[in-house]
């Protein structure tokens, strides 16, 4: 068994796929592994893969051409997952989809074959990532810094920043904004009128309260007040609220602080 060790970002995974495939050792004799996780296996040879954007691009192009855009979106989202086996699972699905004799129409539909454990795993990861990104479309909160820049911090489970880029830059074309993934320390940056980009391991200074714009506090207060007054007390249901809006998101949200403390006082 030869295990290709690749980095956990999309470029790293696609390069790993490229190298494992190109090794021609036989699909049954190779595996992919993301080294930051898991234990070492005995009796395996390790090959470390340096991410190579060109190789990654080739793999991406092949997937799009052979399997279609929808399949690409699914595989791409799966690669953004935080699950440890994502690289190898994606590799296995590609082995199925790109096998000889599989026509173009079938290649894309391989992803419908939930009977297959690798397809099911990829599907599940992709759905999980998509759901998390969808939640953050609503849960991201910006604060205005004194220079007018909008700044947001989040702590998602998966690498969702690339899935937020189109949405927010289309929504706020004339704003400068930053969304900072505090766990990975990746930053999504958008310049007014320009494109967006994700920078890995970005250095962000810790924010001091004094750096917010003059109007920021007033709007925070208006919003928090609104979130309280819009609730119907006769229907109050904190358990339902918690189920739909888990505590882990609230820490990073303007109005979440209030509900965090409410929560603490109401249930010991």
């Amino acid at each position, binding site marked *: 068994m030869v295990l290709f060790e690749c980095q956990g970002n999309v470029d790293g995974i696609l390069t790993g796929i490229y190298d494992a495939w190109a090794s021609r050792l036989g699909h049954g004799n190779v595996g992919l592994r993301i080294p930051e996780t898991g234990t070492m296996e005995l009796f395996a040879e390790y090959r470390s893969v340096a991410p190579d954007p060109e190789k990654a691009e080739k793999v991406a192009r092949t997937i799009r051409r052979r399997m279609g*855009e929808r399949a690409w979106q699914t595989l791409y989202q799966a690669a953004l997952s935080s699950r440890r086996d994502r690289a190898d699972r994606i590799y296995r699905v590609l082995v199925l989809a790109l096998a*000889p004799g599989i026509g173009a129409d079938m290649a894309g539909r391989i992803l419908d074959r939930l009977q297959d454990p690798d397809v099911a795993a990829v599907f599940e990861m992709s759905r999980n990532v998509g759901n998390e990104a969808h939640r953050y479309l609503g849960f991201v909160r910006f604060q205005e810094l004194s220079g007018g820049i909008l700044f947001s911090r989040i702590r998602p489970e998966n690498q969702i920043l690339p899935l937020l880029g189109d949405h927010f830059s289309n929504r706020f074309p004339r704003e400068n904004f930053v969304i900072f993934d505090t766990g990975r320390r990746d930053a999504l940056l958008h310049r007014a009128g320009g494109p967006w980009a994700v920078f890995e391991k970005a250095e962000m200074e810790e924010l001091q309260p004094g750096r917010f714009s003059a109007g920021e506090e007033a709007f925070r207060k208006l*919003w928090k007040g609104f979130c309280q007054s819009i609730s119907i007390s006769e229907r109050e*249901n904190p358990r339902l609220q918690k189920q739909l809006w888990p505590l882990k998101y609230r820490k990073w949200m303007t109005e979440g602080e209030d509900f965090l403390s409410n929560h603490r006082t109401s249930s010991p």
Partner: protein
Amino acid sequence: MRIAKERDLYEKLQILSDAAKYDVACTSSGVDRRGSGQGMGNCAASGICHSFSADGRCISLLKILFTNECVFDCRYCVNRSSNDTPRASFTPEEVCTLTMEFYRRNYIEGLFLSSGILVSPSYTMELLYQTLYKLRREYRFEGYIHVKAIPGAPAELIERAGFLADRMSVNLELPTAEGLRRLAPHKSRKRILAPMRQIQLGHARNRQELSLYRSAPRFVPAGQSTQMIIGATPERDYQILSVAEALYRNFQLKRVFYSAFVKVNEDALLPALPGGPPLLREHRLYQADWLLRFYGFSAGELLNEKHPNFNVFLDPKCDWALSHLEQFPVEVNTADYYTLLRVPGIGPKSARRIVQARRLGSLDFPSLRKAGVVMKRAMYFITCRGRQLAPLKIEEDFILERLLCRSSRKSGEPVSYRQLSLFDAGQLLGPPPAELDQTGVTGGDGYGSF
């Protein structure tokens, strides 16, 4: 006017959001619109929830009244003219500022603007129109706008507002004309249905225009909705659901919302409701409404004169399946899409996945789970390759008992009243099922290079 002193923006927002909260429409769904690049905002067809209030409802829109001054005296309403309650009115600028600044911080998906009747319906509608005009044209807001059409306002004004909004709604208020006469003396069914019809026809006309000129201005692109109050008047569920069905059919409404009556006024004509607002009933109506819109059920299949109310213990679909056991079990590997949809525990998404997956080989029980089927409910109603997971005789009482046992395990918990509208459409990011790429070529040896 009763505004004693100049209120600041915070106070106004408190009063006018508090006064708007009984309107249940919260969704921002139904229209996909990319931003033009010149302004601020876009719209996502699936709708986006931004927060959740303590009552567990989704917060998606800045939901406010323009004013809670009102010359009408609807008995169920907190803003009725005879109530002594603090009053306030926004200016159009204030509404624009709040919307823009909240939107910029990603607090909201857009604006929901309703209003009490200040001076007259026309006067009020004119104010709403002015506000939307300013927001769209001066502030270049391109996010979601839901606005009320005020019955009794001139058709032309409603039409113009409709070209600025994404969704319009006229509240039916109460399920029957009789109820309306009793509780809302200034309103009439006829006056409510008139703007509803106008919006429907305007929408249809606009679709035709759009098919000819793609860049024609869009009229209420997310369609219209309405809401009725449940439990303020004595209608049965069957009546209510039939009204909803007729609204979907005859007025092409996008959504009918149901609002469990919250008793805010002491009034001899209002019911006592000692148990609080009828939340479970509201929940059942939402479930049934879902069945009307996405599962091909009709109101008459779910309820009838002899059985006019929903089962408190069972959701309407399970209830229906149990009284139609002769149609079960169905074989998941062969049953058509619509038959699958009628199985408890199978929804549109999982039914679609089943149909797609079985083209590539027959399905077993684990793969059904992966397709999203809720097996604890479905297992009584399906076979898979001829086998049934609950290999026991299918009998109404037996299944009923089992289904109830399952839920009573968690009987300490309140039933989830979550509005089904939260996840209106697919949550998976990315393009909806598109045509597959047909241009690929097959590699030679399984090692076709990248």
